[in-house]
């Protein structure tokens, strides 16, 4: 009996600590959302307002008008950076998983490219895009984003295909199905969830990238992160408006992350921890 109460107390203490951590985790996001719906009169006051009495959508209105083109830029860039990665990833992922093309060397070489640091890439990319007169176009941002998405997609899809038992494909082959139809009917449906997960991750990487977009855009092709960083300089006091833009850039990704939850660790550790 005594042991049971002791255990109970321990559980309660642990729960309290965890609730405290949850609050610390969520508070910054709450603060951003709160700021985005506050009226100017409630912002930057001392003491701060922890709740709002008169929520307003004025900041959001501004955001939708002002940042819509940037939102579209982010979407288009992330979409193409993802699409290209998935197509290339599916092709080479299949070859690596089933035929061991290039042995271990080639896939691991591709994996190591995932870590090619943007800070090394920005100078050559700026010069190249400058020469090609592509600065401030979406294409200029999509291309370096492939450094992040392609190696990741190859590696993830290779892992997902390896999980499909080879025997399934072999059985279909005995039944006389052609290779292409085997891939279409058996392999693809089985790795479809894996492809979706990989695509969502690629999308998030591209969406959240700041450095490439910062260097390769001016005003036409600006993405959401660059817009947020720029608003800081242009309008130092527009806290409400910047918060609404920040929320617009963040909330969809958080929702995606909740969908991805089960695969989050796998994606973030490049498939090394499943």
């Amino acid at each position, binding site marked *: 009996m005594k042991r049971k109460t002791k255990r109970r107390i321990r559980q309660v203490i642990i729960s309290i600590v965890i609730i405290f951590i949850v609050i610390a985790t969520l508070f910054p996001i709450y603060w951003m959302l709160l700021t985005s719906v506050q009226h100017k009169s409630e912002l930057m006051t001392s003491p701060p307002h922890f709740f709002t009495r008169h929520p307003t959508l004025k900041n959001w209105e501004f955001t939708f008008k002002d940042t819509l083109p940037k939102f579209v830029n982010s979407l288009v860039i992330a979409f193409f950076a993802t699409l290209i990665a998935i197509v290339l990833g599916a092709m080479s992922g299949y070859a690596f998983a089933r035929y061991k093309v290039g042995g271990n060397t080639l896939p691991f070489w591709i994996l190591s490219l995932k870590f090619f*640091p*943007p800070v090394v890439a920005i100078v050559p990319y700026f010069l190249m895009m400058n020469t090609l007169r592509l600065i401030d176009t979406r294409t200029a941002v999509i291309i370096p984003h492939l450094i992040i998405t392609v190696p990741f997609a190859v590696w993830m899809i290779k892992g997902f295909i390896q999980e499909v038992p080879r025997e399934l494909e072999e059985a279909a082959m005995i039944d006389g199905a052609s290779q292409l139809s085997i891939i279409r009917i058996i392999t693809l449906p089985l790795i479809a969830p894996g492809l979706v997960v990989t695509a969502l991750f690629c999308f998030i990487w591209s969406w959240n990238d700041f450095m490439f977009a910062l260097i390769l855009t001016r005003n036409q092709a600006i993405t959401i992160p660059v817009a947020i960083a720029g608003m800081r300089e242009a309008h130092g006091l527009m806290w409400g408006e910047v918060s609404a833009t920040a929320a617009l850039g963040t909330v969809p990704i958080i929702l995606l992350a909740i969908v991805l939850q089960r695969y989050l660790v796998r994606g973030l550790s490049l498939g090394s921890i499943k």
Partner: protein
Amino acid sequence: MVGKKTAYFLVVPTVIVLVLIVIFPMFYSITVSLLSFDIRIPHHPFAGLKNFIGILSDSKFYHAALVTGIMMVAELVIEFILGLGIALLLMQIPLSRKIYQPILLIPMMVMPVVVGYVGRLLFEVRSGPVNYFLNVFGIESLQWHASAHLALITVLILRIWRWTPFVMATLLAGLLSLPVEPYESVQVDGANARQTFFYITLPMLKPVITLVIIMRALEILQAFDIIYVLTMGGPGISTMPLSLYTYLTGFRYWDIGQASAAAWLIMIPLSILVTFFVKLMEKGEEIEEKN
């Protein structure tokens, strides 16, 4: 099945794309680092190692390396302890883990630029909630990112907020995948919780821990976004890490050659870490194949 020849063709497009987008820029960058590069004129004379010497004799570069070094040590230690601690706490309450875990993962999906911006709101000197809470507890308001001593700490707090969930989630996945047999046998031997943790859990978790630390180190080495928005390296150069130093050299002072040289100096520790990482992954793959 398709012949192996066809399989090679499936890989070719990826390899071509990667050579074009990674290998070519890499060599271009090395070339630029050896030139005296002035963006306004078309001809760039060969400069030998002048850019590297320029960087290595710039005291700001050493300060930036120091800032990156401090961030590396502080973040790895704190994020690891916090991450492991929270993971172990969540192990204790399996039922509520399903509710708490997704919430605790949210920070790592927040755009780093937004983290920096929210940091400006939270640590605002006069009206930020952080100073408000300090006042409630009778502590005077601090200058946070506006002060030379506290700016780096403010950056670290935000970065730890954003990255601890990654460490926690990875270690938790590792903990959950550990086999139960060793635990059963030490229970028979009458080991206490502490002994079990240090002699069973930690050693078995070692591969995952190594992986997490390498991945974190790779990211810390490139820390940029949050600092760009929060302090832009200031006050003075107190929060300027290597990547921001490189960026400013290239795109504020337009010394493209020196920026390339600085980038390649960052590449040295980075490639060592990547080599370790790839070796580790290769090992993991081999073990998997044997099973």
